[in-house]
């Protein structure tokens, strides 16, 4: 369990700390993804985002997704860190990272984790636009039932 770092926090996320956590003698590569608040989406200017979460379930889902990644790739260490509350433009809302023996699997596992997080983990963002308006962002589809998520076996 000390090989997995899951955290929801109102503090700024520390990418250097994530990389230091992931470093391990068995790893040849670490892949990290950092989601940052983008100022422009089409014509709309964002000033900041605010994140709401169903916190205990979000952490549990994150753990479950890491376990899924471990079933598919030789993940030695993994971290999934998500900031809650207000995240200003250009700051990090999420840091996902994995350590694996070789680089191809690091990219694949990291990509899987951020894609799955955005589909499955009960966290929502609210855009605060420069014109003063706000809007909850809604994902494209409801989270999948656990059985619907492609299992490690089905993939091989």
């Amino acid at each position, binding site marked *: 369990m000390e090989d997995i770092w899951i955290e929801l926090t109102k503090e700024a996320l520390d990418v250097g700390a994530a990389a230091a956590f992931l470093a391990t003698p068995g790893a040849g590569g670490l892949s990290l993804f950092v*989601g940052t608040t983008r100022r422009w989406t089409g014509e709309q200017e964002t000033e900041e985002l605010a*994140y*709401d*979460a*169903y916190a*205990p*379930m*979000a952490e*549990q889902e994150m753990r479950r997704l890491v376990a899924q990644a471990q079933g598919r790739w030789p993940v030695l260490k993994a971290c999934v860190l*998500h900031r809650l509350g207000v995240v200003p433009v250009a700051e990090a*809302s*999420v840091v996902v990272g994995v350590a694996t023996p070789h680089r191809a699997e690091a990219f694949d596992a990291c990509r899987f984790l*951020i894609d799955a*997080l*955005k*589909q*499955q*983990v*009960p*966290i*929502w*963002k*609210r855009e605060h636009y420069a014109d003063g308006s706000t809007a*909850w*962002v*809604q*994902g*494209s*589809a*409801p*989270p*999948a*039932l*656990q059985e619907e998520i492609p299992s490690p076996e089905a993939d091989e």
Partner: protein
Amino acid sequence: MTERDVKTTAPHEAAQLRVLLFSVLREKVGRGTLDLALPAPATGAALLDQLARDYPALAPYRPIVRLAVNQEYTDESVRLEAGDEVALITPVSGG
């Protein structure tokens, strides 16, 4: 599962449930928690129907809500038991 089998609600008893709301649903209803008694048979679908009647603001979201029961996503056919923690999950947008 074993625990749930044991504490099955009696056929005509109402199940006392706590429902959690987040993000847009909490905003629309103005509350993050709803307590309600659901007549038997207490299923996820019955819960969503009753909530849509009691809180018209929730009705438009019914087709896209995923139920989570005791912090696990479940099908609406799920049988709900007294004390279950139920959450209404609209399509998420974390990351």
